[in-house]
């Protein structure tokens, strides 16, 4: 079943067309990677789908709902999560509080009148946070201020925040950038577990080709705002257009 579909999706900044009539389809429980050289429009594409940017033209359909023009919080509440390229966390809050923010959003919706209720009375929120922290292996750092974590841990915290929002579809923007080889491996395993154990659908933007060709079911190649290839890792590996346009004719 198709979970996400874009039709004719276009974004231009002044004269520059960053995303040009892109049409993609993401099936349920699929792991799709988006690759392309710097400036190809990968981040713009994610920003259009998750509501950070409004499309100039075209539609984004998620389970028959048109996302174009919706606010990020509405899109997140529909079940689309994202983790950011830079560690987008709450530096002065503890690790646990960082994830709690997302857990509250998942448990109680985008706005609730509960300012007279103590937050330590929400067992389901605490459980959700504990689960997310355990998945990224940060449960021992729960009481540490996020600002004092090493960079790789901050990125994992960022992923935990994305997970706690309980998404069906998760966009991950370069999740392994700045991570050590051990952390990269852990993250790759985590991504595969989220797909297999939790049935999540994942869209990955990644520069590390080893990871991309290792974990993806499908790869989309963006070049100058357009999709130039779309297929399984094997198909992409042998695609002449991709080689000449993106990989400069190199073997991969």
């Amino acid at each position, binding site marked *: 079943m198709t979970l996400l579909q874009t039709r004719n999706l276009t974004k231009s900044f002044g004269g520059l067309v960053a995303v040009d009539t892109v049409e993609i389809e993401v099936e349920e429980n699929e792991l799709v990677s988006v690759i392309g050289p710097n400036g190809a429009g990968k981040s713009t594409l994610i920003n259009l789908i998750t509501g950070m940017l409004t499309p100039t033209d075209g539609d984004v359909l998620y389970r028959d709902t048109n996302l174009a023009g919706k606010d990020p919080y509405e899109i997140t509440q529909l079940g689309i999560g994202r983790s950011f390229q830079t560690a987008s966390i709450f530096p002065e809050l503890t690790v646990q509080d960082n994830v709690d923010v997302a857990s509250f959003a998942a448990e109680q919706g985008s*706005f609730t009148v509960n300012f007279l209720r103590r937050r330590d009375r929400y067992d389901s929120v605490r459980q959700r946070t504990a689960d997310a922290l355990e998945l990224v292996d940060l449960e021992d750092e729960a009481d540490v201020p996020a600002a004092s974590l090493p960079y790789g841990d901050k990125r994992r915290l960022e992923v935990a925040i994305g997970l706690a929002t309980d998404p069906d579809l998760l966009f991950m923007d370069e999740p392994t950038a700045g991570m050590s080889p051990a952390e990269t491996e852990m993250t790759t395993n985590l991504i595969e577990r989220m797909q297999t154990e939790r049935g999540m659908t994942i869209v990955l933007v990644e520069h590390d080709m080893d990871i991309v060709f290792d974990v993806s079911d499908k790869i989309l190649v963006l070049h100058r705002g357009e999709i130039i290839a779309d297929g399984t890792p094997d198909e992409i590996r042998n695609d002449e257009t991709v080689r000449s346009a993106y990989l400069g004719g190199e073997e991969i």
Partner: protein
Amino acid sequence: MSEETAQQLTDTDAAILSWETWDRVKHTERFAIVAAVVFVALWSWLFARAPITSELGGYHSLATTILIWSVFAIGFNLLLGQTGLLSFGHAMFWGGGGYAAALVSLHVYGDPVLMLVVGTTFTLLLAALTGVIALRLHAVYFAIITLAMGQLLYYLATSPLRPITGGRNGLTGIQLEPIFGLVYLGMPLPGIFGTLWVNYEYLLVATVFVLVIAFVNRIRKSPYGLIFRAIRENEQRVSFVGLNVWRYKFAAFLMSGGIVGLGGSLMTIESQFAGLGSLYWITSGEVVIMTVLGGVGTLFGPVLGAVIFLYFEGVVDGFPIVGRYWLLMLATVFTAIVWKYPDGLWGMLKLIASRIRSSVEDNP
């Protein structure tokens, strides 16, 4: 020898145990409320009548005024300290609540509780109206538009609305009726209660103060407290976890405005007067100074800021020779404190306390 070492060990253990108990207790909700009750119970006496401390020149009505301004600063801090929104127009809620309370007492009835309810309700409406517009803007633009709105209200009260507000003369002749028809606020309290709290008016102000502390403390411990701080830290991320940032900011603005309006109404009861000064932008600036001086984002910091500010204004002002330089001295103190301790006086006290504590723990 070995006995001595054992003895030392147990002592250290006991000390660590008691620190742990203290750490647990001081973060409980009840502790903050008990601390507030003890504070207001002793405050007027310590400030104005106790044998040694009152030599510093405090007097009872200033003690009351300080509590009322503390309510103002606590309400303001809910917006600045918790949510990270700097309003430069909070005088509109302080003065707005004050005028509304004065008007209801002049034209309807002067029950202090009715004045508080009307003042606060009017301010909530005013905050809803101004919040819808101001919260569309960010950072410095938010500060400027709140300043502009506050000044707009000030000019409205000065001239076009003079028939209602009394223009430059303000509203005088406010008659307070007995609270709930039972007792006049000016009536002295008997015996020890009179020594501690003087009259019923102080009891009313102290009660409101404690209720505001309890309310803000509860908000801080609710999901809102966490979400407000998250918005202060990284607003974009909050919307991308699925929370409606605008509504939470609006809620913070309403709560802050309502508390400030409650304080403004109390001020009208205390002074039996509502004047233009309460709406003026300098008033908005004074509450910023109090809050930053005391400690942004802390529960009791703004109270400390209000104490220092009003002490300089009300007491140091009257000192021979140096008195006329009170504002200069206050500015110097402010600059020094904020430069050295960005978390204000409260942050400074916490730091000193933790230094003493770690030296105690290192040398038992």
